[in-house]
């Protein structure tokens, strides 16, 4: 394994410490519960927004903490839901009189930890709600009744509820907005390579020099099927068709289009994918009103990308346009 890593067990804490050192004015690292929170949280004039999930998805979610986005992120170890205690303590730490919204990608481990933590927090009198995000169209077969996974589309939910809470919306209203954005968001991803969790030290699965995995989640697991590598435009079509067909997105729609890198794919390639997706949508009469190209929710060093569409209306577009300041900065 060739990574910038010391003790693999310290991978997440050291990353979080680095993040806090790089953002001393805006971020605070709480080592006991492995969490990153805004230095000004909790604020009683706004609902606190928390995202919990495993680590390995950076910039999601610890680098999405900041004004207009999250008040705290509560990550577990690499690809593992946070232990219930951490969620519970995070909820208490950011408890605001306007309430707390927990955002959770819909994976079994996360669901359970957050369900349990919410129960305990409610018993303590914290006004807390949980929103499960499930934008992944790769998981649609009704046989797999655990439901869809939450993947890169969580960015849009975070951005929208972050903006709404910053504007003073109450917990019910923030929850309504989050559910609405989630319901309008669809994603699918593919992997060109497997990723290597630091504690494992080797790739999670073997993939031939000409093979790819289609329909992957964000935890480095294999996808729904394996295929041969194909030209970039066909890779895009492979994701775009199921995504468009699912909501469905239709001629006349205005959308946000995200090409999300999974960690090991350079941004140059993401723009090649963006180009084709944008053109294909235009041909279908769908207008890309907002574009997002880069890394938003990754799987460590996995090469590959996911494609997300969000159906826009004036409300959602306004929330996406609202300013935000987060640790994933450029200057």
């Amino acid at each position, binding site marked *: 394994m060739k990574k910038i890593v010391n003790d693999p*067990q310290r991978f997440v804490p050291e990353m979080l410490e680095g993040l806090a050192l790089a953002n001393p004015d805006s971020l605070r690292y709480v080592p006991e519960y492995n969490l990153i929170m805004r230095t000004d949280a909790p604020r009683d004039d706004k609902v606190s927004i928390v995202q919990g999930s*495993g680590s390995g998805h950076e910039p999601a979610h610890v680098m999405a903490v900041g004004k207009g986005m999250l008040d705290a992120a509560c990550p*577990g*170890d*690499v*690809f*593992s*839901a*946070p*232990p*219930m*205690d951490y969620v519970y303590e995070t909820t208490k730490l950011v408890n605001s009189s306007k309430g707390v919204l927990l955002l959770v990608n819909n*994976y*079994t*481990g996360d669901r*359970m*930890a957050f369900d*349990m933590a919410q129960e305990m927090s409610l018993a303590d009198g914290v006004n807390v709600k949980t929103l499960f995000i499930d934008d992944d169209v*790769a*998981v649609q*077969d009704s*046989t*797999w*009744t*655990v439901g869809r*996974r939450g993947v890169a589309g969580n960015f849009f939910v975070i951005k929208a509820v972050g903006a709404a809470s910053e504007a003073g919306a109450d917990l019910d209203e923030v929850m309504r907005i989050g559910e609405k954005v989630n319901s309008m968001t669809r994603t699918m991803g593919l992997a060109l390579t497997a990723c290597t*969790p630091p*504690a*494992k030290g080797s790739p*999670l*699965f073997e993939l031939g020099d000409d093979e790819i995995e289609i329909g992957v*989640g964000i*935890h*480095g*697991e*294999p*996808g*729904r*099927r394996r295929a041969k590598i194909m030209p970039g435009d066909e890779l895009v079509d492979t994701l775009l068709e199921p995504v468009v067909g699912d909501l469905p997105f239709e001629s006349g729609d205005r959308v946000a289009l995200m090409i999300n890198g999974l960690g090991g794919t350079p941004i140059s390639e993401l723009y090649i994918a963006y180009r084709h997706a944008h053109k294909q949508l235009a041909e279908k009469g769908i207008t890309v009103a907002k574009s997002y190209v880069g890394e938003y929710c990754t799987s460590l060093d996995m090469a590959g990308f996911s494609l997300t569409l969000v159906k826009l209306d004036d409300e959602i577009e306004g929330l996406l346009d609202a300013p935000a300041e987060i640790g994933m900065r450029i200057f």
Partner: protein
Amino acid sequence: MTNMSDVEFVVRTIAQTAVDNEKYFGDLDAVVGDGDFGYSLARGFEIVLKDWDSYDRTDISTFLSKVAITITGRIGGTSGPIWGTAFLRAAAVAKGKTDITGDDAVAMLRSAITGIMARGNAELGDKTLLDALAPLTDAIEAELIAGTTTSEIVSAAAEAARAAAEATTPMIARRGRASYTGERSIGSPDAGAVAVAVILEAIASNWDSRGGPR
């Protein structure tokens, strides 16, 4: 009849086996899952071993509850809630007891199983650790009826768990990370079920030399 010392032996063996098999359990989970199963268990049970002396041993139930709190609170992923729930449910059945009979042990396991099912919304045949836990409990029950020795019972349970774990290979996963891969989960055993078998084998092979009153 088993007592607190036997319970301690079982819990300690579970914890030690989890720590010792971090890599193996992780590799099993990596086949169609995300590879963190071994890491999650090891990090949590490490704490159980570290805090070992501090657990309240007023009775078996209290002891198991304290261990459950560590597990639930400190193990991440699906395993924390699942294994924590199992310990909690077993503790509830042992309420107030300082000795447990074979029937108590079966009741505790059955309670753990229904607890896991409720927590994870899973059923037998979904290709989870339940598919090892239920058969090993059945085996214990059968041996109790047959009236064999504790040592033989434990061995039978281990054999049942191993056979059951292997029997998960042709199953299609319907719960957990592996389920997202659909049909591709066929052909490899469930990591959780194998872990249960490995733990039972460790318990069985050390049972006779476990020390403490018998």
